[in-house]
């Protein structure tokens, strides 16, 4: 980069007092990185007094983020205070007052999380592994070699949707409904996924109605290890009010869909951008388990989580006031060179690669992290068996969102062995 482009880069010229990192376009164009680099250097805990989402703090360094994560007594996830994203959960006239355990504080959070976590616990995943592997193989075997295809649609979405349908024991032929509901749940009208908040509301109510049918069916059957049956039969969740039922479903759908999907695509892109790493992988497929956490760090499929201060507090020397909105930018913390060596390099055999922020920490740490790692490990093992290269042949298209860091399209060609 020349000095000329550096000086014209808005990330380095905008006055700090006006720096607002919430614009979804900065994420879609993948230009957000230089803004975070500057904040980590010049103002690691940064106050933005005015934005489309109101005033908010940005916490950009790894250790400061960790401090917020583990202090749930001070930094609340409660949906009625705004919840867990920069965009307040319960805002807008057509919003649904959804409740989900990711946006609750203990003790209610604890009871609901415990009710569903066995579905994604290691002992259940051992049973799932052969099913996921068979389906991954089926997906890959159906792809044409040497022709341009969209990896996002054909592989990333397909695999995560199949896994989610398995976890829910969802009607197989209708599984793409899960993909649609996941997209709708995180969409705003500007993304084009829905045309209005009213449409979003209608579709999510359809989702609730559909699941209500599955719920009633499970209630009349003996308990099984799928997520719906677990919720139906657990005292902590069986009498949930309607909007809490819908909220927790959406949490599980988005959590299981929109995240791993983008790490699957992001890994393909990262290996293409770092051909020496791709060669290293081909030479030693035993590196896959070490590579998976590095892909998840590199992609950081959720850019942030947000908290609301329940009392005055201090982070990195800054005074946070009761009621303030505090955004932990995982995407920035995962590039913090004080904690991660050479953070801007994608290194598949990075020592200590598990030490990243993408799953969060503390009581809200990602419940499905092992399912995510399992799917990524399996898909890469099966890819290496079949193809010498998944070659990116065009520019990726990225998601318009300051929360989901993902891809809507990734054109690739497959090369056989």
């Amino acid at each position: 980069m020349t000095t000329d482009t550096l000086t014209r880069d808005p990330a380095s010229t905008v006055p700090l007092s006006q720096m607002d990192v919430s614009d979804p376009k900065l994420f879609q164009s993948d230009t957000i990185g230089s803004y975070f680099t500057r904040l980590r250097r010049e103002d690691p805990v940064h106050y933005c007094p005015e934005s489309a989402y109101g005033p908010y703090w940005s916490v950009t360094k790894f250790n400061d983020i960790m401090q917020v994560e583990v202090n749930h007594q001070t930094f609340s996830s409660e949906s009625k205070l705004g919840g867990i994203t920069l965009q307040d959960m319960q805002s807008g006239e057509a919003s649904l007052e959804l409740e989900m355990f990711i946006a609750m504080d203990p003790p209610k959070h604890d009871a609901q999380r415990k009710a569903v976590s066995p579905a994604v616990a290691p002992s259940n995943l051992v049973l799932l592994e052969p099913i996921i592997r068979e389906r991954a193989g089926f997906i890959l075997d159906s792809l044409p070699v040497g022709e341009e295809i969209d990896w996002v649609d054909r592989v990333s979405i397909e695999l995560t949707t199949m896994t989610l349908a398995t976890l829910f024991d969802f009607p197989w032929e209708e599984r793409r409904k899960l993909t649609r509901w996941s997209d709708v749940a995180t969409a705003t009208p500007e993304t084009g996924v829905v045309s209005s908040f009213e449409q979003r509301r209608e579709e999510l109510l359809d989702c609730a109605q559909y699941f209500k049918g599955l719920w009633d069916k499970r209630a009349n059957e003996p308990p099984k290890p799928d997520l719906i049956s677990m919720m139906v039969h657990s005292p902590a969740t069986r009498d949930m009010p309607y909007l809490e039922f819908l909220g927790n479903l959406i949490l599980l759908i988005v959590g299981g869909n929109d995240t791993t999907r983008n790490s699957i695509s992001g890994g393909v892109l990262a290996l293409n951008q770092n051909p020496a790493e791709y060669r290293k992988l081909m030479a030693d497929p035993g590196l896959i388990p070490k590579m998976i956490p590095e892909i998840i760090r590199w992609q950081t499929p959720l850019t942030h989580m947000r908290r609301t201060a329940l009392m005055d507090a201090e982070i990195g020397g800054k005074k946070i006031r009761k009621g303030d909105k505090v955004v932990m930018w995982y995407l920035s913390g995962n590039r913090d060179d004080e904690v991660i060596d050479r953070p801007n390099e994608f290194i598949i055999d990075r020592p200590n690669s598990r030490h990243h922020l993408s799953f969060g920490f503390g009581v809200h740490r990602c419940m499905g992290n092992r399912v995510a790692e399992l799917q990524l490990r399996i898909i890469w093992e099966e890819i290496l068996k079949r193809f010498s290269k998944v070659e990116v042949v065009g520019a990726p298209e990225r998601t318009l969102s300051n929360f989901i860091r993902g891809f809507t399209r990734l054109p690739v060609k497959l090369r056989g062995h």
Partner: protein
Amino acid sequence: MPTVIFIEPDGAEYPIAVKSGTTARDAAVNNGVPGIDGDCGGECACATCHVHVDAAWMSRAGMAEPGGMEANLLQFAEGSTENSRLACQITMTDDLDGLMLRIPDGQH
């Protein structure tokens, strides 16, 4: 140097001698004991270093403080029992020489 002994679900034992003051989590991670990931770096924030303290050692290795962060996290860990601890919260001393920690089945 006190020794901590990690016992895998299949019965395999990993005895590791460490300097007094080292946590059991660091002893495991720095010596490649399978099943102890310690993702958060030993900050009591992820529960990926869950162990079951051998019954004979419970009085000396202690229990997770009720209501504290360690107990908060352990409630979500698979196979959590009253013998459960996070290895990052056990600091090795001469008094704990020979401590036996069992790694739960399927920590991965």
